[in-house]
């Protein structure tokens, strides 16, 4: 009798597990082939042009692109029910290494491959040494601060550099007061907040500071914040936002899309203050030139940090998408080409602008067409 009890207990447990398993075998309701619950129908045209695309595309790289990649993957997968796109936000550096070793078919990176990297690296998945490297995520980076009662300030490159490097000690410093007549500045101490991890955002900010305020910012363009500067170190964009939100008197730099609830500085460019905005970011890119000495499909830009247009916002991040110009595996080529085409298309750029607040490429026809041509070369 007792033996039977124990067996029926075991049977009950087994039955529960089985029932659990059965309940799980149902398909995800948001993954029905009809994709009824997916609202994004604007990309339906892509289905018509690339029929019967299927497979898995593994991508990775820049953490700053996470929100944009979410939007792109959602839109692309909605149009191509048979395709799964994965994006690992492992960081730009790890992304470039992964692309070289063949872990990632496509990557997002905040810094273009350098000339040295290009000449010394063999790309495992590529049939030739040529890569397609296009700017696809252009985003204003904001100087964000936390001063109760003050939502915006005007700073020029020199004061921004002084604030971030800790050379200005209090918020009522004459340099800030001179730029902001009529604003009552508190005597709160300035606490700079910077990224503790190697970051493309840091790279773009220091590039701006070294070119627009060379007399104050003497550390050059670096991806790791200089260690001899004081302040609070925070990991990732989310960490910087949390640090600034948590304490009055803090100032740091974050992607503009993440500045909700924080004070944001307008930067003086060509004599007039510009708040971070997508249109201003596009104007800076328009004033920039592609780096020379690269292949036709490698559109790495030298960003002009002192554009002459007074409405251009100069502290922008130009983040790239990278693919092989020619893949060894045609299946990879088809997926990479379709995905990259979607990313740089008007729909893709609009989707990223909606989710991540980036500047759509399409607002600059010259850049957009150069990018489209480069992506079309993927084979």
């Amino acid at each position, binding site marked *: 009798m007792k033996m039977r009890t124990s*067996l029926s207990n*075991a049977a009950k447990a087994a039955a529960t597990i089985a029932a659990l398993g059965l309940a799980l075998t149902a398909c*995800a309701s948001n*993954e029905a082939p009809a994709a009824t619950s997916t609202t994004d129908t604007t990309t339906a045209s892509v289905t018509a042009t690339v029929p019967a695309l299927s497979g898995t595309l593994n991508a990775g790289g820049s953490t700053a692109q*996470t929100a944009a990649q979410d939007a792109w993957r959602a839109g692309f997968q909605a149009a191509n029910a048979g395709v799964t796109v994965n994006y690992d936000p492992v960081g730009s550096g790890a992304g470039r290494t992964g692309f070289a070793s063949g872990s990632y078919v496509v990557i997002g990176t905040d810094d273009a491959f350098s000339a040295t990297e290009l000449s010394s690296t063999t790309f495992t998945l590529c049939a030739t040494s040529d890569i397609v490297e296009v700017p696809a995520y252009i985003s204003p980076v904001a100087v964000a601060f936390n001063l109760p009662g003050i939502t915006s300030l005007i700073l020029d490159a020199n004061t921004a550099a002084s604030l971030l490097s800790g050379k200005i000690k209090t918020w009522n410093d004459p340099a800030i007061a001179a730029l902001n007549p009529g604003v009552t500045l508190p005597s709160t101490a300035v606490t700079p907040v910077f990224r503790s991890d190697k970051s493309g955002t840091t790279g773009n900010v220091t590039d701006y500071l070294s070119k627009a305020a060379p007399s104050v910012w003497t550390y050059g363009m670096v991806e790791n914040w200089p260690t001899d500067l004081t302040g609070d170190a925070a990991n990732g964009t989310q960490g910087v936002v949390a640090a600034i939100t948590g304490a009055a008197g803090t100032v740091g730099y974050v992607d503009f899309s993440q500045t909700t609830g924080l004070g944001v500085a307008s930067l003086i460019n060509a004599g007039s203050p510009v708040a971070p905005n997508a249109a201003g970011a596009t104007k800076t890119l328009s004033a920039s030139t592609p780096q020379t000495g690269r292949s036709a499909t490698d559109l790495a830009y030298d960003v002009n940090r002192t554009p002459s247009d007074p409405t251009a916002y100069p502290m922008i991040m130009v983040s790239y998408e990278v693919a092989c110009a020619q893949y060894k595996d045609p299946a990879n080529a088809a997926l990479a080409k379709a995905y990259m085409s979607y990313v740089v298309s008007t729909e893709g750029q609009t989707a990223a602008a909606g989710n991540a607040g980036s500047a759509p490429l399409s607002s600059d026809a010259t850049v957009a067409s150069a990018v489209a041509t480069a992506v079309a070369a993927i084979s």
Partner: protein
Amino acid sequence: MTRTSLAIPPLRPGRGARRADTVATIVMWACALIGAVPLVGLLWTTISRGLARLDVTFFTQSMRGVIGPGGGALHALMGTALITLAATVLAAPLGLITALWLVEEADRSSSPGVRRFGGTVRLVVDVMTGIPSIVAGLTVFALITLVAAPGTRSGIAGSLALAIIMVPVVARASEEVLVRVPEDLREGGLALGAARWRVVTKIVLPTARPGLVSAVVLGVSRVVGETAPLLLVAGFTDSMNYNLLSGRMASLPVYIYSQWQNKGVDAAAYNSRAWTAALVLVIFVLFFQVAARLIGRSRKETQK
């Protein structure tokens, strides 16, 4: 000679002894309560933050095409179920047979060499119990890197890593169960002229069955919450994947990590999904632990 005092033990403890007893009781209760504080705090945090998204959508949707709020963890639940099932299929027989060999063969062997080898196997099993899970993950990662293209991730690789962690747990637990099968039962079977394999299959295994089931369930509860090896070799994806052999497969612990680490713009939605997944995982582990206890308890009853 001083031992004579023991001849008349005090019937009542003295006042000092009673006071010491009271103090000791209070200290022990206080320690027990302090020990329970982190557990209660952890459960409370997980439940209070996880309840918000414990809805139907969470169990019927994946994360494919989800931006910001909404979405669910069906793909991760499915992945955890498949990966753990495959790991159990790989590890349970290996663990059980190891235990059976140790108890029924090595310990009873007349050859000192076999007995010594049995001792070595026991040592290896004990050492394996202490292997950090990340090492199991790295081992499998190195293995796939050798045989497949770089960056290849699959559910079965995750199962393999979990199986490495599970084998010693199952072997150790079932060995203890098998040792406790009364010797009389074996001798009775042998005396009636049964062959040794018949004694093992018809007497030892049925007697130990609840305990063996309990050992396997214990092994499952040990691996169901593993993150690091799965992050390395099974990877993460937003979409359903029913195929263990091909493509990345999400799992509940990696889902929590990924929701927490790779937040989109609406960070609150990602946090709340992570908490709900943590709550579901805690419930899973609790379920398996309690199941193992219940099955193990009924075994003791049968022995009475």
